[in-house]
């Protein structure tokens, strides 16, 4: 009982700090040196595969608390200890708790394993030291490189949590922070460069892969283009076997030998902002090795016992970025990002020649290049808004497999098992007819502005299109800053394709706009911020 009272008192103290801040409705000053901010958010998602159906697939309730403690200022820690060359230091933390009540509301989610139902963790916790011209950030953190928005090229340092709403949330909220050291040495002018600095990142042991749900019972499971089922059968010849699949996750352990790291030099050359980046990492997307040597076919039990290893190859990412503000003719900011990555895992179709699949494990690593050209432009469309410009941002993203083979394959699908043209009930097999194209393209466009006397209505339009598969994605957003604390947001996501049946690599309408797997969504959220 006493403990309960203490907890209640603690909770009420927290509420009083956050809901009734005395002097500010932004950051809350707990003391002269400690600041708190954060939010509580409820997000509901309705999914409709057609015009006349819909189901609630998410009711995520999130509380986030962020704090900053200024414990070292003017070369003194805690106001008394001299710290020599360290001028300033702060401790920052960001903690998040999330509970998706849809798992308790909907009967159909009752038999899931509760993965994705809740999350409570300190996502970020780091200390910043300022020792001019050197700065150091130590701790669990996010680091973002590159000029590209919402596609992976140089922004690969932190893995992504794609399990609860794919990549459709702010990446700040779905990046998985890692324990690392980030040191930056400010150079300033050197040779032809201005505003230059050198950055070094060391991730000594903390490797984590992208988090993807493949359990079809989860609303945002990644199940490929086929059925939302798990393959339970295999067909060999004309015979149907039970499939007993063992997936061994060969994840790098937390040893220094599995460390990651990289560096970046960034500066202004002429009027062009440029950076040279290198990152020695581990692929956050696993490759799959088929262990033929461990696979057994038991004719007595009519079972195929297959073993696959999820492996995470070493990667080398070399990148170059540039940005340029062209004020005279186009009044646009041009962004460029190019990368060359070695160590991208690919799957190889069964039966590929030994020259393609030398180990016979249907797995290899390849080199891949990316070129992204982006344009940002504040643009007047006075017919739609005569007070404020639209911020228009567009990107052209081109990814190319430098070592390409027609045997490389994309994501597999699950289809009903059938023998001799007859479909067998409740039996599903995995198939893969999805070949990787050597060149992959996607084009994005977004426009946003604000309306209302104080700009509190904030619409946004997003469009992404894959010209090869003709898969597309649209997002319409309207955010309303109702009061100083309360923000409402409504979103509509559409997945559609223009024509054809080819599956592209971007998870757009070619994958989630197809009947049976359509994921058009309506999102409503209410946020209390402080």
């Amino acid at each position, binding site marked *: 009982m006493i403990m309960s009272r203490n907890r209640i008192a603690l909770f009420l103290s927290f509420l009083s700090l956050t809901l009734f801040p005395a002097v*500010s*409705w*932004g*950051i809350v*000053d707990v003391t*002269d040196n400690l600041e708190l*901010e*954060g*939010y509580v958010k409820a997000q509901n998602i309705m999914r409709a595969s057609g015009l006349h159906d819909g189901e609630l697939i998410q009711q995520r309730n999130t509380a986030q608390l962020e704090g900053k403690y200024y414990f070292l200022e003017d070369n003194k820690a805690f106001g008394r200890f001299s710290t020599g060359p360290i001028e300033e230091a702060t401790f920052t933390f*960001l903690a998040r708790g999330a509970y998706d009540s849809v798992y308790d509301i909907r009967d159909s989610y009752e038999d899931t394993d509760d993965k994705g139902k809740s999350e409570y963790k300190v996502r970020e916790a780091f200390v*910043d030291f300022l020792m*001019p*011209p050197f700065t150091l*950030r130590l701790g669990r953190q*996010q*680091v*973002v*490189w*590159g000029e590209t*928005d919402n596609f992976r090229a140089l922004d690969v340092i932190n893995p992504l949590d794609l399990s609860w709403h794919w990549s459709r949330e*702010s*990446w*700040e909220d779905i990046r998985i922070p890692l324990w690392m050291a980030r040191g*930056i040495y*400010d150079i*300033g*002018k050197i040779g032809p460069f201005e*505003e*230059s*600095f050198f*950055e070094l990142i060391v991730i000594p042991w903390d490797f984590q892969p992208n988090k993807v749900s493949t359990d079809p019972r989860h609303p945002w499971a990644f199940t490929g283009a086929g059925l939302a089922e798990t393959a339970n059968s295999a067909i060999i010849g004309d015979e149907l076997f039970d499939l007993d699949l063992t997936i061994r996750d060969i994840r790098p352990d937390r040893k220094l030998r599995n460390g990651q790291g990289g560096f970046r030099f*960034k*500066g*202004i050359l002429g*009027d062009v902002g440029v950076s040279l980046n290198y990152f020695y990492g581990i692929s956050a997307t696993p490759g799959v090795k088929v262990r033929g040597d461990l696979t057994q076919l038991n004719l007595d039990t009519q079972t195929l016992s297959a073993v696959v290893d999820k492996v995470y190859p070493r990667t080398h990412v070399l990148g170059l970025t540039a*940005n340029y*503000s062209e*004020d*005279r003719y186009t*009044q*646009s*900011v041009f962004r460029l990002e190019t990368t060359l990555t070695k160590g991208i895992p690919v799957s190889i179709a069964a039966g590929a020649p030994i020259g393609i699949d030398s180990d016979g494990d249907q797995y290899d690593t390849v080199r891949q290049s990316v070129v992204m050209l982006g344009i*940002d*432009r*504040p643009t*007047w469309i006075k017919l739609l808004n*005569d*007070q*404020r*410009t639209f911020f228009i941002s567009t990107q052209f993203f081109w990814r190319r497999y430098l070592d390409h083979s027609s045997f490389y394959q994309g994501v597999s699908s699950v289809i009903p098992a059938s023998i001799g043209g007859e479909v067998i009930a409740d039996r599903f097999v995995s198939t893969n007819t999805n070949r990787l194209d050597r060149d992959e393209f996607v084009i994005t466009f977004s426009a946003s502005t*604000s309306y*209302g*006397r*104080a*700009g*509190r209505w904030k619409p946004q339009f997003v469009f992404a299109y894959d010209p090869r598969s003709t898969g597309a994605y649209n997002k319409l957003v309207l955010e309303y*800053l109702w009061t*100083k604390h309360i*923000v409402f947001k409504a979103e509509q996501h559409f997945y559609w394709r223009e024509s054809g049946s080819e599956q592209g690599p971007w998870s757009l309408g070619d994958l989630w706009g197809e009947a049976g797997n359509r994921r058009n969504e309506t999102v409503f959220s209410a946020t209390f*911020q402080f």
Partner: protein
Amino acid sequence: MKLQAKFTNGTHYRRTSPRILMAGVLLWLAAPSYALEDQSYESLMKWIEDSRPGAETVMPGQHLTEKDRQSLLEPLIPHSAWKYYFFDGMEMEIAATGHYPAPDAWGENMASGYKLDEEGTLVGFTGGGFPFSEINSDDPNAAQKVLWNMLWRPGSNDYNMPMVTWLRSEDGSLDREMEYTSVNTTYARGDKSLVPGYEEVKSKKIMEFRSPRDMAGAKNMTIEYVDHYKEDSGWLYMPAQRKPRRTLASERTGEMMGMDMIREDLNGFGGKVYENNWAYLGKRKVLATVNVSDNPEIGGPSLWVPHKTRWEVRDTHVILIEPKAKDHPYSHRIVFIDAETYWTHWMFAFDKEDDQLLRMAQHFLKYSESYATEPATQSSYVKQDFSKNIGHKVFMHLGETDINAKKPHATITHCHVAKRDFTPARAKQFYSLRNMISGRR
């Protein structure tokens, strides 16, 4: 005295149209003073042309109210602002017109050899003093020279400035409140730069938002160059993106962040000289909140304007600016710039659609030496040592009101300025792209 000025490109600025003239005559027959609601460009021009009162019309120590409006206030408050500044219960305290010396070494370390080019753009100037010590009304470039003195005035940079901004509707309701801090340093200091090797930089600024939470942690860095033809360089760090983004400086005509001002309105005029035609309209005495004791109380029926605060009669240069761009939202901009200190007191911008008032701004200033006797209020979220302000002999910008007459809506800002001196090494580190690649989250 009739205005004879013309734009420096030779064209005369637009005179009163017969239709508006007729309306004016009818108005004059109906009432002895200007119509309160008339906020046209023509009416402000007429107000400027008409009587030019002396400072003796009001006396130090007077507390002026609505009843003093016609006799004392109308000649000293620009006509376009009457609608907002005259209201029941209004009160203005009149102080003696002060003399505000510039910093001790002001003008002693200026580089020579600068000039105005054919566009009226100042070339080769690197600060340290006013570029033009005399303004001659007969000079065809008088307006630009006033403007250049304003842009290079002492005290425009070198501070920590925590601010709070209120966005209010006409009924006084608060639509949005923002807290943010600007830190700003002058690099170009006459015959030397603060940071050797950075002689091309005029000033650098970093501004960071503190609230509301949807903007907290957003910060931008701006580098302004000595070469006026070179656009500013800018980067914006958004916490949601966790990286800086290059920004475009040449779009200056859209409202910023829901506020009732555009970038070109900053300090009366924050655009490019060569993108406009210029005319000098002579000197005009106006009332100005030039040395307020503190951030002024905000009053009026809409809570848009300073109330119960201290005003002085100030001599101002009046300049007329006409944007050359056909798609610019303004037909004309009229700015009243202090003839001694070259700080902007009033700015009025008129809608290209109908020549009616679109936006206006009025600034609140405080002289640094007055902090010795009248310390200002601290901001709610950071405490500063205001005693450091004393001795600089410059003005502190304590805030402004920006009104969009067409919405109608206003943005009122209180600034809490403390002078800050950067060492060259500290400035080099603080105002760096390195400082923009991460933020409070």
